[in-house]
């Protein structure tokens, strides 16, 4: 998998069409085994829904701002490690309330470092400048092995397939992927 050009909201023809705009981005590294699950799912989504804007692996979280640019639906896929069985798919829709000023606990995590501008910080910033998508869904695929090397564990690969199906359904709900 190669890096996809990211941050260019007009790199697909979708802007010129009067269709809902969908952005699918992924994080992770294909060279750290199951950490590549999000990228693998993104690639499968791109095959099934060629009109959506895909991008990843995201290097700079701020890059997602350029991609989002007021999209109707934004999906971010990443591998996660929560203790659930490998291959488990987690779907989380971001709460617009996150655009409110953070309380002290959130501040202690969010703005401490530019290295640490996370998804919530980017979402808040996107809301403030009017670029937030109407809907943002984070898809987590439970990984098992995050060591060096390529290739996913079988259970995680199965999770990738399930995650892809969920994402395609989400895209279908906004009418962008048959």
């Amino acid at each position, binding site marked *: 998998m190669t890096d996809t050009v990211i941050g260019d909201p007009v790199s697909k023809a979708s802007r010129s069409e009067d269709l809902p705009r969908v952005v699918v981005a992924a994080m992770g590294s294909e060279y750290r085994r199951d950490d590549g699950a999000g990228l693998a799912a993104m690639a499968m989504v791109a095959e099934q829904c060629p009109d959506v804007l895909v991008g990843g692996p995201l290097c700079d979280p701020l890059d997602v701002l350029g991609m989002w640019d007021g999209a109707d639906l934004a999906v971010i896929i990443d591998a996660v490690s929560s203790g659930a069985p490998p291959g488990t798919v987690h779907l989380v829709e971001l709460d617009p309330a996150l655009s409110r000023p953070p309380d002290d606990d959130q*501040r202690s995590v969010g703005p401490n470092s530019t290295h640490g501008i996370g998804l919530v910080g980017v979402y808040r910033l996107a809301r403030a*400048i009017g670029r937030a998508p109407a809907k943002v869904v984070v898809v987590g695929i439970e990984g098992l092995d995050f060591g060096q090397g390529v290739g996913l564990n079988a259970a995680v690969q199965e999770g990738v397939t399930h995650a892809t199906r969920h994402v395609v359904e989400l895209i279908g709900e906004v009418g962008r992927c048959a």
Partner: protein
Amino acid sequence: MTHGSSVHRTVSIEGLSRVEGEGSLHVEVRDGVVEQVALNIFEPPRFFEAFLRGRGALEAPDITARICGICPVAYQMSACAAVEDAAGVTVSPAVTDMRRLLYCGEWIQSHALHIYLLHAPDFLGCADAVELAELDRAAVERGLAIKKIGNLLMATVGGRAIHPVNVRVGGFYSAPAPPEIAALADPLRRARDLALETVSWVAGFDFPDMAGDYHFVSLRSPRHYPIESGRIASSDGLDLSPSAFNQMVVEEHVARSTALHARLAGQRDYLTGPLARYALNSSILPQVAREAATAAGLGPVVTNPFQSIVVRAVELVFACDEALRLVESYEAPNPPATDVPLRAGVGFGVSEAPRGLLLHAYTLDAAGDITTARIVPPTSQNQITIEADLRRVVQGALDLSDADLGLRCEQAVRNHDPCISCAAHFLDIMVVRA
């Protein structure tokens, strides 16, 4: 915390925000006199120098780039220079120009990020960039647009926007075709215009009155504002080779910091970064940057550290203009890299990271493996000066409430855009007033 006329006053900031990494600040004031300022850096040590030992010298640029996601090119360039110095190899002028062009991309990214998302909120009473965006959406949009063009430049020349993959010892793995580089011209013209707007914007901020007694140290080169190479100059007349600078820099461990504190042997502390570069090289800035500095009210030397944001904006103009110059004169280096036959030896590499001078020194064995490595990042070099700044800031602002004094201290630290992750090698603040 206590405040006001009590004898003892402590200001403590337990988690300094909007800096790179984790640290804290402890200030003690007794009878109206600042007794102690301690910049505590507790980010775990990174051990990169140890990681390098036993690794092939050709791996150094990619290994050290991982020290920082904001200034990976700085690490790559200083690493390449050190290995090439050890091998006795000089790269072609076309490779030097392409390196400088890539480095401009990193300056544009880093300066835009620091000015708009990290430092400007301090001057406008905003808690963070989100509040700033709610106050002045156009400003944040401008900053993001500049940064995006920096990302584009990095991706075009370096292969991707963060942690470029196209850099190798001797040059690059591949040289972009001239049309790819030519396509950067219009975005860079746009970025230069936005950078000029940035200078005007930040020049209008209110700056606390303060003058630092700085010993400036930066690279200097005869023709161009320093980025990727040069000799080491200082405001008191030093003119050193990288090798001599390596000998002169003394680092010491202090208990409160996982980052070493650097000073010049037999001399006082010193300051690297935009204020130093500008003080020692403002005369050779291109006309558009010099005119912007003059219009912003800057003289040839700036000693108010709070005005570093203006100097950084002037450097942003420079970086965009310089990148445009290099784009317009681009000739793809052929070959894209000079062959670097490794040999036993010692090499030194210096370059100007966005936040200051970065030194790498390696010893190689006959097989080309690294046997010793020394990396002196800007924040290590600036820590003592930052503490001295804080002492002045607190002493001059004792009438402020603890909360306001804490904010002023954080702002003072951010004046120097420290990268604790690079140096720990950052910030909670505590002020004790007595």
